[in-house]
């Protein structure tokens, strides 16, 4: 390559090992530098994203604290940790939001659900999904109003057996051409409401403002 006559030393295995090693070192150094330069900005952007989706499901005026502060970590039924973000006013928990998920047609559907202290749905939004564009993506609020139908409902209202799509004898509409997607969303919301009921005591415990003494009570201890 380049020069027509290859110098002898380049054919040695040592030279080639050095070359590969040198480039790997250089690559590592570049990646470390890139990571240092972008790490804080990316973390800040992710906080903004989280805050934006939280404020979509918990109406402003419902709380007077920073929702991202003092998240409560509980254990989901499958054993994984779940962060609950709480809105408080006057040391009373007025609202909370946490992630719920269901198995859709083409993969996991991740949603965030906001509830008031009594377990009434304040709002549900899709965080990510891989459903079919044009059919299953009507669960996005940008595409359709469907997801707003859950606002104001709770575990007893409507009764449990009505938490189904109409096709399954429930009271919720499905989209033409896509039944699995709304079914999955319904199931996720129902599971999320059951989770609220089961962890009611822990969820309503007001967050301790002094973070030095970790006295968080909950099913799970504080995880970092």
């Amino acid at each position, binding site marked *: *390559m380049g020069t027509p006559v290859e110098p002898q030393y380049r*054919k040695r295995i040592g*030279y080639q090992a050095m070359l590969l090693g040198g*480039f790997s070192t250089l690559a590592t150094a570049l990646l470390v530098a*890139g990571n240092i330069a*972008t790490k804080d900005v*990316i973390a800040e952007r992710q906080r903004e994203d989280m805050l934006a989706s939280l404020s979509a499901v918990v109406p402003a005026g419902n709380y007077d604290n920073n929702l991202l502060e003092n998240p409560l970590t509980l254990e989901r039924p499958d054993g994984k940790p779940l962060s609950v973000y709480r809105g408080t006013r006057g040391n009373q928990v007025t609202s909370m939001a946490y992630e719920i998920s269901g198995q859709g047609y083409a993969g996991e559907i991740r949603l965030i659900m906001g509830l008031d202290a009594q377990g009434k749905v304040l709002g549900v939004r899709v965080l990510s999904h891989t459903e079919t*564009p044009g059919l299953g993506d009507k669960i996005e609020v940008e595409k359709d109003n469907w997801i707003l139908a859950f606002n104001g409902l709770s575990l007893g209202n409507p009764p449990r057996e009505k938490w189904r799509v109409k096709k399954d004898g429930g009271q919720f509409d499905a989209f033409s051409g896509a039944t699995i997607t709304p079914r999955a969303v319904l199931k996720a919301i129902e599971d999320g409401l059951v989770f609220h009921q089961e962890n009611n005591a822990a969820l309503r415990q007001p967050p301790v403002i002094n973070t030095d003494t970790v006295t968080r009570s909950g099913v799970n201890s504080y995880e970092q």
Partner: protein
Amino acid sequence: MSSDYGRIAKDGIWNNNIVFAQALGLCPLLAVTGTASNGLGMGLASTVVMIASGLLISLFRGIITPQVRIPVFVLIIAVLVTLVDMFMNAWMHDLHKVLGLFIPLIVTNCAILGRAESFASRNNILPSLFDGLMMGVGFTMVLVMLGAAREVLGSGTLFANAALLLGQWASFMELTLIPDYKGFPLIILPPGGFVVLGFLLAGKRLVDRVMSNRQKRVTTPQDSATATPT
């Protein structure tokens, strides 16, 4: 020298276009071209990687031996793509949310390794930079054409979310061509990408044939009747 650059430009944009002539890079191509804006974003990101990899590889070509060139090229390209991914996540976050899944796919774009192997490793820095730019422009052009065609047919809009990509001033580009369009999911889904790409490729062949017929007619007017090569 100038004719050399002219040839590089022609090769990159038309004659040896990554998609039209080499049929490379189809994986990112079909994955992101649901809208023209996504195509543009992906094209620009690929162009940056191609220019930078052309620069680095032509810079180091004197010390890289043929035996280890492929791992070194792959390493350079992978580092560049990772850096582009990080920088976009930090400073073009909204676009990164749309394209994020596909940025790592740039590394699988064999066109980049192909240009490293067949051009940058054999040429000086300036021609390599220019080749990267022109190949990138040609790739971007196809991505935008494909994205625009699929977006108009599939969703009835054009350049939706362009403001995410280019900033607020670009919002005038966001058109709704067919109001109350119910959508045509097939075109948005990957099979639609293949179908539209097929039409684009056929269109390119057609233009090439018309051009070569015209050229033949100019040089040998009496043979024009028989000049239809296939």
